[in-house]
């Protein structure tokens, strides 16, 4: 992997999230450079998924700023005051950010091919022929070229998740978010999905990956962030942190999952 320049693509500054009185995120700062794979781990309830969902505004931002590619997410800043973006403007920002969900969330009434074609045709306005050609290439890339006509219910969990990755890639995003992409899979299906993600990382895609796969973090991650209780406890080189965690909580967590 070659990172030519340390160019920050994602900047999260002082991010807080409240659900009513429940303070879920308590001031998150994080930077992801162009072409980097940033892996986020932590116990359930630590706020790592919420943090990820804030990046494409599936959760509103209670306090702090997130910017992707230098563009503030969810707001426009005019004379130091934040103005909410319109639904259409938010949709435009989301087009640059692909997301892969724990539960795949494929459209069950559409075939694998139609799932991948949906957004290029109906959001970007690509012609059907063009979108289909590109969708078939993407399905090939995730190893499912022969499953294009299958409905999600005819695919295994691992295959569904790879279609979901192809669907997100079809929009040619500059950033990919993965929300525990292998947590809902049978153990023997995890490898195929991780391999697709590894290939994607090698191709230079900027990725934020919330996961429990420590092996993936060690092998593919450029940075590893350990979150607990809504804060970043530790962050740095994955291999160093996994081999030699500095904080007691990190040590305890890694001891339980390794």
């Amino acid at each position: 992997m070659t990172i030519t320049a340390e160019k920050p693509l994602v900047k999260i500054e002082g991010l807080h999230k409240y659900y009513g009185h429940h303070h879920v995120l308590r001031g998150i700062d994080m930077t992801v450079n162009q072409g980097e794979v940033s892996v986020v781990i932590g116990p359930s309830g630590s706020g790592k998924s919420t943090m990820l969902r804030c990046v494409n505004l599936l959760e509103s931002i209670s306090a702090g700023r997130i910017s992707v590619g230098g563009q503030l997410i969810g707001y426009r800043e005019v004379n130091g005051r934040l103005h909410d973006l319109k639904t259409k403007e938010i949709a435009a920002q989301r087009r640059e950010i692909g997301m892969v969900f724990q539960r795949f969330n494929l459209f069950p009434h559409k075939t694998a091919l139609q799932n991948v074609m949906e957004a290029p045709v109906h959001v970007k306005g690509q012609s059907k022929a063009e979108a289909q050609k590109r969708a078939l290439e993407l399905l090939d890339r995730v190893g499912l070229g022969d499953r294009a006509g299958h409905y999600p219910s005819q695919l295994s969990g691992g295959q569904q998740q790879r279609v979901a990755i192809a669907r997100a890639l079809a929009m040619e995003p500059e950033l990919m978010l993965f929300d525990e992409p292998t947590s809902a899979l049978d153990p023997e299906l995890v490898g195929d999905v991780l391999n697709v993600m590894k290939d994607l990382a090698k191709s230079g895609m900027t990725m934020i990956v919330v996961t429990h796969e420590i092996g993936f973090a060690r092998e593919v991650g450029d940075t590893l962030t350990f979150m607990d209780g809504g804060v970043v406890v530790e962050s740095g080189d994955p291999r160093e942190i996994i081999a030699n965690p500095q904080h007691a909580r990190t040590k305890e967590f890694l001891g339980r999952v390794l």
Partner: protein
Amino acid sequence: MEHPHRAEAPVLNKSVPVRHPGRWISAVIILALVAVFLQSLFTNPNFRWDIVGTYILDVKVVQGVGWTLLLTVTSMALAIVLAILLAFMRQSDNPVFRWSSWVWVWFFRGTPVYTQLVFWGLIAVLYPKISAGVPFGPELFSLDTASIVNATVAAILGLGLNESAYLAEIFRAGLKSVDKGQMEAAEALGMAKGKIMWRIILPQAMRVIVPPTGNETIGMLKTTSLVLAVPFTLDLTFATNALANRTYLPVPLLIVAAIWYLVITSILMVGQHFIEAYYGKGVDNLAPAAVNPAAAKAAGAGADVKHSMKTDFPEESAR
């Protein structure tokens, strides 16, 4: 124990099944009742099957069937369009839309359809002229209400608006039944709100919406017999009632009406079957996926073995 003949087929268990005397007794009783009823159909002269035969294809009756169908289809179409709108409004971020939708459903579900039909029949008395203009200001144009809202339009409006309130609740339940993840996935792709509703949420909601809507359509077919309240006097029930009053033979003409309603209902049920199949694609009528590809491979390998065994012993199958 050793199994020297592993390849041999196992001896299937031949157990004595449990007897069900209750099934036989109930079958005899029900068949007897059906026989008595059928016998009465054929032997009771008061049914007047000859009159049924005379009037089943009577011009007035067939025209009545046509009008009943027209009322059913147009009022359901109106109701479906309004119901989709009302259900979307009910889910809207705009509080004015949510509130208006709720009030609409409250009003049209809360008053009898008969009352509403009478009301629409009297609309020309209530508002003799429909005019457009600035409130308290100049009038732009004006029309006679009676020329627009004739009996047919009044019947369709009465039936359709009433039905829209019920359908709105069915559509709302359908939209709610779609997994939240679907909305999130579509949003994450940058799809616009309207596109998400039309292309992702509604097609999936249709699976839940179609069966009760079929129910409502069949209900509507028979509710059209209330349009007498408007008064609209061309539908099937009115036509057969008029013939019954003229001939003093109510029973055979009720049978004529019942036969036609049954025929139309049966056709509607066939239509519903195909609509359900369409919206169930990808979900209902598919073999479940092999969740475990290793197992699928093994099953595939098993099939191969069987296949090769067949080719190994061609003379076996030839015999």
